[in-house]
Every structure is written in structure tokens, then in C-alpha cells.
């Protein structure tokens, strides 16, 4: 409520807005450059540089890269892994949190600390033994190994998020169900899970995207080309071949697009979830 003259205030607010827009444009410039150059011919790039708009929609760079890495296969792999992890990790989180948050089993604080410590450990300090065990039980270079590992890693986070949500679960509802003769499994499946569906969907979304974006453990575990995920395949090809500029931007665009799609699909859930993750 400072007493600035109206006019100055009016100008001031537009100056602020324009400054913010300039900052935002700078932040988004990398995305813009990737998009325009993905649709250029290599000769166009060579003669006009990276800033000019493409003369037409040249799709060959995208198509070539798609075929070169068998991008359909990478999409299928990433979707299979992320979807399996999201479903399984939600189930494991739900079971753990049911015992800890609703059941308040003895030693729950110790269990929560156990799960939290498990989730903060750097993957590097697990990687070699996991790699060695996986080889030993013939799970090395299988997508199952990655699904199993990330189910556990993600559900550590899910366990304490859900446990905290469940600690405020209406006790009357549980008591009423018990009086009606519900056993524990029925209580979980018929009462607790349906009521907490919004929290479960937040977890599902997060697990899916986090797993999609993972890099270090997939890099170690998925050695054959046909098993690799989208980020892994793109990053590795980047390192191996000296690709021309337009092919690289085509590959980057293919890596970005699924994430933009998730972002648009799940925007509401994500904002709700990020804040829940911080506070709850």
C-alpha cells in the first residue's frame, strides 16, 4: 500500500511483467531451439544457422533418428517399465502404509526411519552389488531387474507419504467396518484403498514419471540396445556417434515430447503432489 502515484504504478507493473516475460523466454529458449532445428534440413542449418526458422517442415531428420534407434521399441520399453513400477510401487506403499499408518504396528517410527534411510541412500552405493546379484540370478540385462529395483526405491517414498496421510484417516470408519465384521484385508481393499484413491493417484503419477526419467541404474542394468529406455538410448547414442546438429535436435525433441505430454496430462496431479511431498 505504498503511496506511489497511479501512473508510475501502472507503468511499474508492466515493466515487471515484461522483465518476467524476458526471463521466461530465456529459460524456454533451449526448448524453442530444439523444436525449430529438429525440422530443418542439414544444409539449411549449415547455411542459415540455428536461430532462423525452418523453411518448411522437414521430417526426415526425425524419421531417420526414429528408425536408427528403433524409437517405437524404446517407447514400449519405457512405458512397460514405468507403468509396472508405478502399479507395483503403489501396491507396496499401500501395504506398508496400511500397517504403519492405520495399524500403527509396534515400532512404526523405526520402520519409517528404515524406509526413509533406504530412500535417501545414493544409488551408487547399491549399484555394484545389485549388478553382481543380478548377474548371479540371471536377471542382468532384463527389464524385470529394473522394475523390481525401482518398485522398492519408489515405494520407500510412497510408504512415508501414505503413512502420514493415513495417520489422519477417520478412526470411526475403521471401527465401524471392524464392528461389521470386516477383516483386515477387506478393510484395506474395500475401505482404505478407495477412500485414499486421490493420494494413490498422486503417487502413481510421480512413480511413473520418476521411473521414466531415471538414468543411472538403467545405464548399468540394461546393456542391450533392444531393452533400453528412451532417455538411456538417446543419451548413449549422443555419446557414441558424431551426429549432425539437426539429428541431435531431432533426438532431443523425441526425448522431450513424451515428458511434455505427461506434464500436460498430469499437471494438476503434479502440482498437488509436489507440494504434498514437501509438506505432508
Amino acid at each position, binding site marked *: 500500500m505504498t503511496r506511489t502515484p497511479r501512473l508510475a504504478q501502472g507503468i511499474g507493473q508492466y515493466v515487471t511483467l515484461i522483465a518476467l516475460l524476458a526471463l521466461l523466454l530465456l529459460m524456454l529458449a*533451449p526448448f524453442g531451439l530444439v523444436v525449430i532445428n529438429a525440422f530443418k534440413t542439414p544444409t539449411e542449418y549449415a547455411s542459415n544457422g540455428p536461430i532462423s526458422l525452418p523453411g518448411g517442415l522437414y521430417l526426415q531428420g526425425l524419421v531417420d533418428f526414429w528408425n536408427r534407434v528403433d524409437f517405437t521399441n524404446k517407447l514400449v520399453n519405457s512405458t512397460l517399465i514405468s507403468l509396472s513400477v508405478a502399479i507395483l510401487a503403489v501396491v507396496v506403499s499401500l501395504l506398508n502404509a496400511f500397517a504403519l499408518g492405520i495399524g500403527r504396528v509396534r515400532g512404526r517410527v523405526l520402520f519409517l526411519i*528404515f*524406509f526413509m534411510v533406504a530412500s535417501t541412500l545414493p544409488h551408487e552405493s547399491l549399484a555394484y552389488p545389485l549388478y553382481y546379484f543380478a548377474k548371479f540370478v540371471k536377471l542382468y540385462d532384463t527389464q524385470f531387474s529394473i522394475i523390481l529395483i525401482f518398485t*522398492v526405491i519408489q515405494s520407500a517414498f510412497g510408504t512415508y507419504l501414505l503413512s502420514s496421510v493415513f495417520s489422519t484417516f477417520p478412526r470411526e470408519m475403521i471401527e465401524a467396518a471392524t464392528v461389521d465384521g470386516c477383516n483386515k484385508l477387506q478393510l484395506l481393499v474395500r475401505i482404505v484403498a478407495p477412500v485414499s484413491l486421490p493420494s494413490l493417484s498422486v503417487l502413481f503419477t510421480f512413480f511413473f514419471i520418476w521411473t521414466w526419467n531415471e538414468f543411472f541404474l538403467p545405464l548399468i542394468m540394461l546393456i542391450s540396445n533392444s531393452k533400453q529406455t528412451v532417455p538411456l538410448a538417446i543419451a548413449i547414442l549422443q555419446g557414441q556417434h558424431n551426429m549432425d546438429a539437426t539429428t541431435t535436435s531431432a533426438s*532431443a525433441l523425441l526425448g522431450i515430447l513424451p*515428458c511434455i505430454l505427461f506434464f500436460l496430462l498430469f499437471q494438476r496431479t503434479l502440482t498437488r503432489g509436489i507440494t504434498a*511431498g514437501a509438506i505432508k
Partner: protein
Amino acid sequence: MANKSASANQTLIAVELHGARAATHERTSLNRGYAIFLLPGVILFLLVIILPFLVNVGVSFTRWQGVGTPRWIGLANYQQAFTDTTFWASFRNNLILIIAITVVPTIVGLLLSSLLFDYVARRFGKSVSNFFRAGFYLPQILPVAIAGVVWGWLLKPDGAVNWVLNSVGLNALAHNWLGDATTALPTVMVIMVWFQIGYPLVIFMAALQRIDPELLEAAAIDGASGFQGFIHITLPLIRPEIAVVILTTTIYALKIFGQIFVLTRGGPGTATMVPAYFAYQNFFEKFNVGYGAAISTVMAFIILLLTAAFIFAQSRQEVGSEAWT
């Protein structure tokens, strides 16, 4: 945040520590029969996390190439690390990266969120401030490896950044940004700031929503400037969120791997070496598995220490209940 399985809400444990004391009193027969539901989770955790972690600690006391029998050498790997300049360089770089991943994004996030929430949203409407929030958050949705590919492409000697510099007559500034030891780390830092800004912004904007606007208005009537209101009212009230952001991003910084792998592989020399990549190198490129295990154990130890300190600080603070429910 792109990699937030580490987005550990350690804060929760602190709350639980309080709750548990109260809970022991109200334990009734209702609470029996739940332990069985923990069984699959606990078994999976022992197999996939606890056992590998302990084995890794064990391996760190041995010399092992990954084949044959590991040979017990006691603390020799740790002694070697202590005098290894690459080891120290990797942790020094890590400390410097905390500036780009934690310090700068937290400060910029505080200022931006306050600007968007208290100024832009009021004058131009919520949809405008939400638009900015989504825009600044966009880099966060990328897999770190893809973000690395994008920036590696922009920063190549003949890439877009140098092209722009040349075309506006700043040829002198054009540079092999990632290939020169003096500019590699600062360049990675700029990329990390770009990548990280959105995370604190989103958290802080949510935090600001629970501040009663009347508080700031009352302060303004009493003659406080907008900036004073921010320092004396807003900051103390959102301290829990600031603490969470600082902890999670610091831990994230200590674990950074993907960007380094794609952009520089720790080079040139050790200019951008970080512990995670150094451990990876020893495991899978140099086959010094014991030494790699020692490096990663040191990493894990530092991270556990940070987490424990945070839980301790939070549970001592008697976290304001309104912030947590």
C-alpha cells in the same frame, strides 16, 4: 522435480516422532494383525537396498576387480582416497555445485515466488502467475539425460550459443564452453540453475498460499515496505518449506550423475568430476570395485549424516502444527 525419489520428506519423520508418543497410549486391540502387511515390503527392502548396501560397505574394505575373490585390505581404500587428488576434486566440485543446485535456486525461487504470488497474481490475475509458474517449471520435467543432450548440443563449439555470440559481434566470447577446464564447471552450474529453478518456485508458491494475507496488509498499514514484509513475515512463516528445499536439493546435488555423464564425463581432466561419476568410473571402467565401493560409501555416509541432522533439527524445533497438517 525430475529425480525426486530423493525428494525425501524427512520432515515427516519428525512429525511421526511426536505423534508416536501420543499413539502408544491409545493402542488398542484394533491395532493387532497388521504386521503381516509389512512383510512383502520389508523383505523387498532387505533384498534390494539393505543387503546390497551392506555388501557394498564390505567390498569397500577389499581389493577386487569384480571377478575372483575379493582380498581384504582393511582401510587401505579409504587411505588411498584421502590422498587422491581426484577424490578431493570430486567433492570440491560437488560443494561448488551446491551453489548452483541449492543456494541460487532457493534464493531466486523465494524472490520469484513472492513476486508472482503477492504482485503478479494480484495485479494480473492468478492465471498469469500460474502461466509463469508452469513455464519456469518446464525444465524440471525433463529427464536429466535429455536436459544434458539439449545443452550439450547448444554448447558445442559450433553450436547455437557460439553462433549467437558470433552473429552479434561478440566473437571474442565464443568458446568451447564444456571442453575448456576453466569454463566447464561454471557452464555446468548455469545449466543446473536453469534446471532447478522450478522446484523451489513451485514449493514456495504453495507455501505462500497458507499465509494469511491480512498479516502482510496489517504490516503495510503499520508502514512496512513490501520488502520488509517479505523478510519479517513471509520468510519466517515458510521456513519449513525452505528447510525441505535446502535438504532435498543438497542431497540431490551430492548424487548428481546423469548431467555429468552426458555433458562432460567429469572432464576435461577432473574439472567437473563428481563423486557419483568417480565411483561409476571405478566400478565399471577401471574395475577398481573396492575403491568405487569406498567412494560410494563415503557419499552415503555424508548423505545419511545430513538427513539425520535435519530430522534432529526438525524434531527439536517442535514444528508448528499448522504448517504440517
